[in-house]
């Protein structure tokens, strides 16, 4: 052993330090649930992590310091650089990527652990082997699933749901194969086959790809949150295999809190988790939801008309959505708001709970563009004011403004809370086309008599409108 050992693994001192670490995690997550303490909570959890890492480095049996230094150095450099460079609009995919590497680490640790077990030539106890297999499968699924989620959010692969023929059958067969492989290894725990283990890793990788590929980009937040919970559970499994209490507690904590968070997120989007995983949205266009495909009459206007409507209004509510995030139009929209405010127009922003690509994402984007916090209004706050609003500007939002959600009980989005822009005196919708949003249904709002459509890229349209207002 190269290490100058200080702490005995599983000994009182090491365990006590691990208890300190996971207590800090629990306090950190608890504080993370409240806006005023969230930032502090994150730092507390990070401090807990520092305690856990230092404790582990002091354990007897830790060696190969060159490799440890290399791993820590490479990982920290990539982590720091990526976190500083990433743009606020790309946050969700960054989280997906971090989640993926976490899952990848779990799968690799499981692989290393099983090789170690085989090389010892003794029977591997099932209490170690079963968690190792679980960690390998879930870690691998999480790694690949997260990478697909990243690809979809980064638009490297199509964001629309990709239907694969016979998908459910293939997934079921893969799952059966994985379970059979695990049973085979567990039954031969005296001399487990590494080849079968690698086959399991590969099958889990394919499964991870196939499960996430058919899911539409708009549902990715729920998927990432779910994979996050899975990675937590796989980390806990690795803790069972390595007899490490810090891993067990922290992993389980993430697994259970992540599950709750996933369900809350799905509820906020008016979806069930099962629905996200097993049904592509829009697959069942309900009859009577106005699903006819013929052209319906609508009003189209240009930037100049839009500028006039806005400049002579008293109050304007901007409703930003997914399209604004994609077009990175937050700064351009802020310019429009600035021009309007110079002319004495009251401007506020209506934030739907799931606006943007993730709950809370829109707040971050607008904050980045220096939109004052007081102008951001939550849905419940703004809806009663809508009827007193002169012009509502919908920028890249669609389903969250569809009046069918409250008017048409047969609509697939019936009951989903919406921002009631149809109550405003006039509505301007900035959108590339009349195409439906992720729900795959027509938006009745576009055909209302008081709605004007401005067909353009959100960023360009906003810049044009700002310039036109200046010219008035």
């Amino acid at each position, binding site marked *: 052993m190269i290490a100058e050992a200080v702490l005995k693994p599983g000994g009182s001192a090491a365990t006590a330090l691990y208890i300190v670490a996971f207590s800090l995690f*629990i306090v950190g997550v608890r504080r993370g649930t409240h806006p005023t303490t969230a930032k502090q909570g994150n730092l507390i959890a990070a401090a807990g992590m520092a305690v856990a890492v230092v404790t582990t480095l002091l354990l007897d049996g830790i060696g190969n310091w060159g490799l440890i230094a290399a791993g820590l150095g490479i990982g920290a450099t990539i982590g720091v650089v990526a976190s500083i460079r990433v743009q606020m609009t790309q*946050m969700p995919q960054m989280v997906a990527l971090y989640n993926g590497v*976490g899952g990848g680490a779990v799968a690799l640790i499981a692989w290393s652990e099983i090789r170690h077990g085989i090389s010892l030539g003794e029977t591997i106890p099932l209490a170690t082997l079963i968690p190792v297999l679980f960690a390998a499968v879930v870690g691998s699924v999480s790694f690949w699933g997260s990478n697909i989620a990243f690809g979809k959010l980064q638009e490297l692969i199509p964001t629309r749901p990709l239907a694969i023929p016979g998908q459910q059958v293939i997934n079921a067969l893969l799952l059966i194969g994985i379970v059979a492989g695990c049973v085979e290894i567990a039954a031969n725990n005296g001399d487990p086959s590494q080849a079968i283990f690698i086959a399991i890793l590969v099958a889990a990788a394919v499964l991870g790809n196939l499960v996430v590929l058919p899911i539409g980009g708009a549902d990715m937040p729920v998927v990432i949150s779910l994979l996050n919970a899975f990675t937590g559970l796989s980390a806990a499994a690795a803790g069972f295999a390595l007899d490490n209490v810090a891993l067990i507690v922290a992993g389980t904590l993430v697994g259970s809190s992540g599950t*709750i968070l996933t369900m809350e997120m799905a509820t906020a989007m008016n979806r069930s988790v099962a629905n996200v995983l097993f049904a592509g949205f829009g697959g069942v266009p309900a009859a009577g939801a106005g699903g006819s495909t013929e052209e319906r009459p609508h009003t189209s206007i240009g930037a100049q008309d839009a500028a006039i409507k806005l400049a002579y209004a008293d109050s304007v509510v901007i409703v930003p959505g997914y399209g604004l995030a994609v077009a990175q139009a937050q700064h351009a929209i802020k310019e429009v708001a600035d021009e309007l405010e110079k002319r004495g127009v009251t401007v506020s922003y209506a934030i739907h709970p799931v606006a943007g690509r993730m709950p809370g994402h829109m707040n971050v984007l607008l904050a980045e563009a220096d939109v004052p916090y007081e102008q951001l209004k939550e849905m419940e706050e703004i809806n009663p004011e809508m009827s007193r609003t002169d012009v509502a500007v919908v920028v890249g939002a669609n389903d969250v403004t569809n009046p069918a959600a409250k008017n048409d009980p047969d609509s697939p989005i019936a009951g989903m809370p919406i921002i009631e822009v149809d109550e405003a005196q006039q509505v301007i919708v900035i959108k590339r086309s009349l195409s439906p949003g992720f729900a795959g249904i027509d938006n009745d709002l576009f055909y209302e008599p008081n709605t004007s459509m401005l067909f353009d890229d959100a960023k360009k349209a906003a810049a044009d409108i700002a310039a036109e207002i200046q010219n008035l």
Partner: protein
Amino acid sequence: MTLITEITIFVLAAFVGFEVISKVPTTLHTPLMSQTNAIHGIVMLGGLIVVGYANDPLEYVIGTIAIAFGTINVVGGFMVTDRMLGMFSRKPKPKADADGKGDS
């Protein structure tokens, strides 16, 4: 540690996790997900442990990548969460002041 002790810890930790996340405002869903995401980067400890008894080139490589992956998860996760939350606390809040910012 016996298996039954570990299972006890597991079950209790699961309940703590369920209890801790209660009624989260939607605005905090993404940062909180990101923070819990960083916490499961604790698997890097597993990397540190397995690399200690790695004894062939493949295991060296696997272990080192596992440590690097785990470290990216931890370092990147906490930093990105901090950046997200920084965006919120830079502006004065309507209800409560950002007291979390000053004393950290």
